[in-house]
């Protein structure tokens, strides 16, 4: 998993190799978005997520049309450029039509010699059957993984599920402190740290978060607040520019961040049941089929609790699940007096001059 010239990519690769050598961990490349992380960790597997590798897309164009989003394209590019040598397998959650078919291309057509695992999670509106099926899916995935990675240790599983709860609680506290404006991190710093969840083992990630939370509250950072929504905070230049404009991202509705990293506390202490509690206790999300009004309410609640003045929808071009929700969300937010801005972005492509101007105009409007 290497983009040799890119410092964060290099850090990831060094970390992966260290995990393999130092802890005998195996590594699975995981495509977006929802997957049972704790199950993998309990089998001494390190999940390394593939959201937006910083690559020039060339090989993937021979497999994917021009109207396919860059999350899917960049992920395939990573594989085609031979940069997944350190991985032991891939895991494809069923997130959208494009990732679904990407999984099939990789598994059926590319002839790569790495096992591919698939994980289907039930789509809302949820019923009793949804929970039953989700637990069956977890059990089934465990059985499939056991064939490659050895038996699931139930004691370890329980510990990792508890650790997952701890992690969610800690990330929740990080979000809370940011919303009240006492965290003292810039937008860029916040997401640079948070996104380490995509590859760091929780044994290493939790202490990073805890150290930040132990720092004395920094009240200077309370400024003009906005919520940012979308798939993931990329290109990072958007965050940099918001920092320059003195606008604080007080909360987010990113799929890669709050939508899957935060959840209501689990009720059950039985690991599979607790994981189901977490999945169904996550925030509303279009890729899971949640009602749009639930998502609107969730964003409105965030805006209220963080005193945000507006919401920026940072769209990945061609992302159908997001694009269907946006008009209703924009209408609903405007009705509540919140300013909205919808921007189209391509991963790792920086910001156009036009986008800079639009962000500045938005800042003036809410200022």
């Amino acid at each position, binding site marked *: 998993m290497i983009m040799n010239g890119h410092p964060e990519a290099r850090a990831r690769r060094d970390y992966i190799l260290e995990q393999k050598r130092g802890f005998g961990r195996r590594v699975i490349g995981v495509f977006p978005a929802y997957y049972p992380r704790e199950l993998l960790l309990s089998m001494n597997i390190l999940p390394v997520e593939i959201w937006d590798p910083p690559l020039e897309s060339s090989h993937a164009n021979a497999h994917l049309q021009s109207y396919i989003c860059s999350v899917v394209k960049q992920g395939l590019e990573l594989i085609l450029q031979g940069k997944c040598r350190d991985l032991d397998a891939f895991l494809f959650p069923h997130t959208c039509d494009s990732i*679904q*078919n990407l999984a099939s291309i990789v598994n*059926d*057509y590319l002839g790569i010699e790495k096992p591919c695992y698939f994980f289907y999670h039930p789509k809302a509106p949820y019923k009793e059957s949804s929970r039953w099926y989700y637990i069956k899916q977890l059990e089934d995935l465990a059985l499939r993984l056991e064939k490659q990675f050895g038996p699931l240790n139930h004691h370890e599983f329980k510990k990792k599920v508890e650790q997952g709860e701890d992690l969610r609680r800690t990330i929740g506290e990080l979000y809370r402190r940011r919303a009240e404006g006492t965290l003292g991190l810039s937008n860029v710093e916040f997401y640079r740290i948070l996104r380490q969840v995509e590859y760091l083992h929780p044994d290493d990630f939790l202490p990073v978060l805890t150290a930040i939370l132990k720092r004395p509250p920094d009240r200077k950072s309370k400024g003009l607040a906005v919520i940012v929504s979308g798939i993931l905070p990329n290109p990072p230049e958007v965050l940099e520019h918001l920092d320059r404009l003195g606008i604080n991202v007080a909360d987010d509705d990113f799929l890669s961040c709050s939508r899957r990293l935060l959840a209501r506390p689990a009720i059950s202490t039985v690991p599979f049941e607790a994981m189901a509690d977490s999945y169904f206790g996550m925030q509303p999300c279009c890729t899971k*089929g949640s009602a749009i009004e639930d998502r609107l309410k969730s964003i409105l609640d965030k805006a209220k609790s963080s005193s945000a003045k507006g919401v920026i929808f940072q769209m990945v071009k061609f992302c159908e*699940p997001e694009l*269907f929700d946006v*008009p*209703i969300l924009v209408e609903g937010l405007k009705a509540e007096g919140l300013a909205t801005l919808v921007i189209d972005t391509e991963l790792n492509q920086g910001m156009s001059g036009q986008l800079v101007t639009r962000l500045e105009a938005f800042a003036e409007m809410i200022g």
Partner: protein
Amino acid sequence: MSLARKLRYGFMKDVGAPLVMGLAGVKSRSKNIRKPDPLFGPPLKCAERLKEIMTRHYFLSRYAEGAKPVAWVTSGAPVELLRAFDFYTIYPENHGALCGAQKLGPELCAVAEEKGYHQDLCSYARIDLGVCFSGKTPVGRLPKPDLLFASNNICQTVMYWYRVLSHKWKIPLLVFDTPFNFGQISRSEINYMVMQFEEMIPVLERISGKRLDQKAFENVMRLGKESAMAWGEILAAMKTVPSPMTIFDAFVHLAPIVSLRGLPVTLDYYNILLSELKDRISKGIGAIINERKRLMWDNIAIWYKVRDFSRLFAEKGMNFVAATYTNAWAETISYMDETRPMESLAKAYSLVILNNNLDHRLNLMERLIDEYHVDGLVIHSARSCKPYSVGQYDLKRLLMERKGIPSVVIEADITDYRAYSEEQTRTRLEAFFEALEGGS
């Protein structure tokens, strides 16, 4: 449901519709006296009957609101369950195709786009939302639904789209969630789908005000199965050389199995069509006069180009005899079993082409190429349909390697012709025609 509306619906069904259809039929017959076309065999006689059926369906739908429970349904949803509760069903995808064929796609899509729905979204969805926002439709008026019924066995898009409808009208959305078959369907997946049906029944009973009539359900299942089997036989008739119909005909005659599945009219109609095809086969009548090459189509039709493509290919002596798309409504019918309705519906609806991995599609296409004696393949890369389109470049390459047949990819859209380039398509097709002729 109000009594007055029920009486009005009954009157329009028994008196109004036959009268209107009769008048429309006379008008249409006098207008459609066509000269024989030197490129094509005689037109299918039953096409007039199909027009009557579909016109009647949309005509009556105007009077269904308030008289019968109305549902808007996705093309791949197991409608048999709704039929047992006597729902009047509207298929926005079928309606979208109709709008596309009448070249209304961009106009209706633009209405949705003005409301913020991006041009990159599925054009069936944009047309439907455009219709909802503007009330414009070539069929007069669509009834407002009491229920939305979507299955993600064809795409996840329908789930996003129907959530918008559910929000707009504040009506319930039933989702039949069919786990994608990355490998083999498992027992827990079948159980999950059966459980969903069981959970739907109280909702359907509440909305329709009726209890589930097991006998009526079994009858619908039987009719649905027999209609789909007849549809399968109709498609199989195209194995004959020369083929008695083209896939462009099949795109049109598909409407009843999509929109009126499980109703007696569909089975009756397909029996008429089948009998006409058998007659043509016995007399050696082909759909095109000079069938020299036989082709297969992949993906949904380019609705605004059906007529043009039909002529273009017929001029070259090329006939489309198979399509993965039309096959979808016949492919899994063997799983249907009215004695085990829920489980068999789960299998029949979750094992369809678009809910299956690409290897499944490759094997299916290889089989169709052999059985239908296919010489070439036209692949429609449809911007609107990602589950159908993602993977097509690999399918093209693999089919060339395995079957040695030439193929071409047309970049277009199902209904929005703003995403279609005539020049680019012609250039690609010319190269394809050359490759195909070179292989003869």
